[in-house]
């Protein structure tokens, strides 16, 4: 019996626990522990779902759903789960580096290599990307007054492909090893000659699945914003988060293709002996760096632009002021989007091209700092004279402004090729990009969760625990990463599992302390969600507008109904909902209701995700029957779906009317709250606009709400 035909290259020694049995050590024990957590976590989930009888609701209400809101929430849940793994890996690496004078430490070099590779890959492709994608999914259609994205099924397919990639990375904890080539996986190290195992293949296929998912997402969102805006919502009336979503989508459409090309070439090198990036036979590994960063640099802006959008919404809302310099923010976003395609070479200044090439790309890199600077001034000026409430989200915003500027400065330093040659591949660089991504993107996403959580679930998050998490995260970040600037300038190289210079020790100790604080911050965040769910009755804000919001998403109930808007809104200005509240035209009953078509749930997307995951797993382990069968099945599902005719169902006008009138009646019956009471139990989600607080009496229950029939 030829087992290889059935199991490919999987042997019993491929399982992580075999390493522990054959070669016991602390490093192997940690690997086995991580594998056990993955297995036990999966088993625990299965048991929980079975005991609680949640399998059917999970399948019926979530996995088969094509509702953009549910897809968005699933993306964010995926991001948080993957974040838990990657942040623990980061802490492990810090601990290793602290313990690793003169070859000490408890991790093997190979294990350390896997840790920084999975940490980077997960954080970029399976935390940051799903987080921003989930957020854009949830918020953007609500902000433009649409009932869903343009292609709801495609949206679900994107999610399931991303999830398939994430599952593949989780599987690599248990079966086999992951790549040790870093998140950028440079050949020739990742070629078959130097990385003969399955690790790089895990990286290739996980990233490829995520990348295809992102391309489809970008396409979907761009069409949605171009074609599905509600009447009156001209481009220059769109909220800034929607603008940044549009620019990010455009980047996704164009930037993912070079990554796909690079991973396909690397795969062909490894699987079929091609010579794209090999040392000999005419291969050129520098082209890999070129292709990877053709994707990689726009990717940086794919991540940060939606966060910029979040910051714009947060600062305007919690300052109770219209955003300063709307137009300049829009044009700055566009400039960044276009320029981001013209700076990719600054990731490999040291690769040997002539000084002229470096100079051009260095200058382009410095120029891209200008529109970002414009944005910072706009956010600062928005706060001037505003009524600022220091909520958790706002604290994150102020922290962002302070630390992001420092990170931006070090970025401008690195844009100078002369300086880059000195600190290239040191911890200085690691400090720089974490300084952009953590206060910028990650904290932006955390702020977004604080801000939009009540919209998605109908109750606010516990404010005290939110602040506690902030006061761990913010100093934790500073402690964890600012020492790395010093270490980098002292010559400490990145991705190094051991060192011998005694001067490094205090700085690594500080960084470890910071990492511990970040873990504590994450623990507080989890606690905040748990506590808030328990106390959801007192935190409830079902009327939809807890923060005196400005864009359309706040005008509908929390959580919104499946059809979002009972009647498509008519927009006449920016900050449409805020203006309506001010003019007293908010919460009016529409003259008439109509039937609404919504897409039916379908098993298409989860099936495609499942088969894509099996396909990638087969490729990693050379299980060719699985590769062929799952590939055929993917396309069989697609073709079968194209023959389905009853893909939509009708929500009758009467249902919509009943739900919406009940909501409006509840709004009218509830007294509005002022900004001072925002964090009290009185806040049920009906806000008195800040500008009308003086005449608050007039807005007591039932008053001042006109009804037009």
């Amino acid at each position: 019996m030829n087992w290889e035909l059935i199991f490919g290259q999987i042997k019993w020694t491929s399982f992580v626990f075999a390493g522990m049995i054959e070669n016991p050590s602390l490093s192997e024990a940690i690997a086995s522990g991580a594998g056990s957590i993955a297995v036990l976590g999966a088993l625990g989930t299965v048991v929980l779902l079975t005991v609680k009888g949640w399998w059917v609701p999970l399948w019926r209400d979530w996995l088969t759903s094509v509702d953009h809101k549910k897809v968005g929430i699933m993306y964010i849940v995926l991001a948080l789960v993957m974040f838990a793994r990657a942040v623990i890996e980061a802490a492990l690496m810090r601990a290793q580096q602290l313990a690793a004078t003169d070859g000490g430490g408890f991790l093997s070099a190979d294990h350390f290599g896997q840790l920084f590779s999975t940490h980077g890959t997960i954080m970029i492709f399976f935390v940051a990307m799903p987080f921003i994608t989930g957020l854009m999914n949830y918020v953007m259609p609500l902000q433009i007054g649409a009932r869903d994205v343009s292609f709801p099924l495609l949206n679900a397919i994107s999610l399931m492909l991303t999830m398939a990639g994430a599952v593949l990375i989780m599987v690599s904890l248990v079966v086999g090893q992951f790549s040790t080539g870093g998140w950028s996986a440079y050949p020739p190290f990742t070629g078959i000659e130097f990385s003969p195992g399955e690790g790089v293949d895990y990286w290739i296929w996980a990233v490829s699945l995520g990348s295809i998912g992102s391309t489809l997402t970008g396409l979907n969102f761009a069409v949605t914003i171009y074609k599905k805006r509600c009447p009156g919502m001209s481009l220059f009336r769109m909220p800034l988060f929607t603008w940044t979503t549009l620019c990010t989508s455009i980047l996704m459409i164009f930037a993912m293709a070079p990554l796909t090309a690079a991973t396909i070439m690397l795969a062909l090198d490894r699987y079929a002996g091609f010579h794209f990036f090999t040392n000999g036979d005419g291969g050129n590994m520098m082209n890999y760096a070129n292709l990877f960063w053709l994707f990689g640099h726009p990717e940086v802006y794919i991540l940060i632009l939606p966060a910029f959008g979040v910051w714009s919404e947060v600062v305007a809302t919690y300052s109770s002021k219209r955003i300063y310099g709307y137009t300049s923010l829009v044009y700055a976003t566009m400039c960044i989007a276009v320029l981001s395609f013209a700076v990719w070479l600054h990731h490999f200044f040291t690769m040997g091209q002539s000084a002229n090439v470096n100079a051009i790309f260095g200058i382009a890199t410095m120029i891209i700092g200008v529109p970002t600077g414009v944005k910072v001034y706009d956010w600062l000026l928005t706060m001037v004279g505003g009524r600022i409430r220091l909520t958790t989200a706002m604290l994150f915003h102020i922290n962002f402004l302070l630390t992001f500027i420092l990170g931006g400065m070090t970025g401008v330093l690195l844009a100078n090729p002369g300086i880059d040659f000195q600190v290239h591949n040191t911890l200085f660089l690691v400090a720089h990009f974490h300084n952009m991504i953590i206060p910028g993107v990650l904290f932006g996403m955390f702020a977004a969760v604080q801000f939009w959580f009540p919209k998605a679930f109908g109750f606010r998050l516990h404010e005290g625990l939110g602040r506690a998490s902030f006061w761990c995260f913010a100093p934790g970040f500073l402690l964890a990463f600012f020492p790395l600037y010093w270490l980098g300038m002292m010559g400490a190289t990145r991705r190094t599992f051991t060192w011998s210079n005694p001067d490094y020790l205090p700085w690594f100790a500080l960084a470890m302390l910071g990492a511990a604080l970040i873990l504590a911050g994450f623990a507080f965040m989890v606690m905040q969600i748990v506590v808030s769910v328990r106390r959801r009755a007192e935190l409830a804000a079902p009327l939809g507008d807890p923060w005196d919001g400005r864009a359309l998403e706040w005008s509908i109930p929390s959580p919104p109904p499946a059809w979002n808007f009972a009647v498509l809104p008519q927009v006449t200005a920016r900050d449409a909902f805020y203006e309506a509240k001010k003019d007293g035209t908010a919460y009016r009953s529409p003259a008439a209701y109509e039937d609404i078509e919504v897409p039916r749930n379908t098993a298409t997307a989860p099936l495609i995700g499942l088969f894509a995951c099996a396909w990638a797993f087969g490729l990693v382990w050379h299980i060719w029957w699985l590769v062929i069968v799952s590939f055929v099945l993917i396309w069989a599902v697609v073709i079968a779906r194209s023959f389905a005719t009853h893909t939509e169902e009708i929500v009758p006008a009467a249902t919509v009317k009943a739900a919406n009138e009940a909501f409006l009646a509840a709004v009218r019956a509830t007294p509005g709250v002022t900004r001072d009471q925002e964090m009290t139990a009185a806040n049920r989600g009906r806000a008195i606009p800040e500008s009308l607080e003086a005449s608050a009496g007039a807005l007591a229950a039932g008053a001042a709400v006109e009804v037009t029939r």
Partner: protein
Amino acid sequence: MSLSERLHPGINLAGTDPESHEAAEEVLFGFWIFLMSDLVLFAVLFATYAAMSVQGIAEGPRPAEVFDLTAAFLETLLLLFSSFAFGFAMLEMKYRENRRGVLGWLLVTGLLGAGFVGMELHDYYVMVTAHGATPQTSGFLSAYYLLTGTHALHVSSGLVWMAVMAVQVVVFGLSPAVKLRLMRLALFWHMLDVVWIGIFTFVYLYGVVS
């Protein structure tokens, strides 16, 4: 040029309600975006080929030694005429709603496309057997096989799609959904012909000239 042609070239939506227009516009715009994203993929492969066909020869043959221009010319004609034939399938769909006409022209398109793929496979066969020019020989040949192979794979998936659409035309008739899908297939097919212009020029002709 007519109104609906301007909005969604080639599809006849005149006389239908505005909602179908809107839906068609979304779907076709989305497909244009997909095509552009695909075009970026090809562009990257072209750029890689442009560098490797000069720098990645190693011990292997040079482009001029392995390319057969006559075959490339015939392949160009096959693809061009199949594009043209698809245009006539669209005319049948748009002006006569004639199932037989549409199916007939699709068959012509498909046969020409299949001929194209067949000729390319024959090219590969000749290169490997007569010149020993496998993709494993050199960076140049790796890039050549990937670029032309990706295009051939696109054409082949277009052929499968065409077969599925032929079945749908029979099963559903020329319903709005089927029309929209045919329209997208047409865009896909014409775009592959545009990509082929790049291949015969920058791969075959440039390779032989320089």
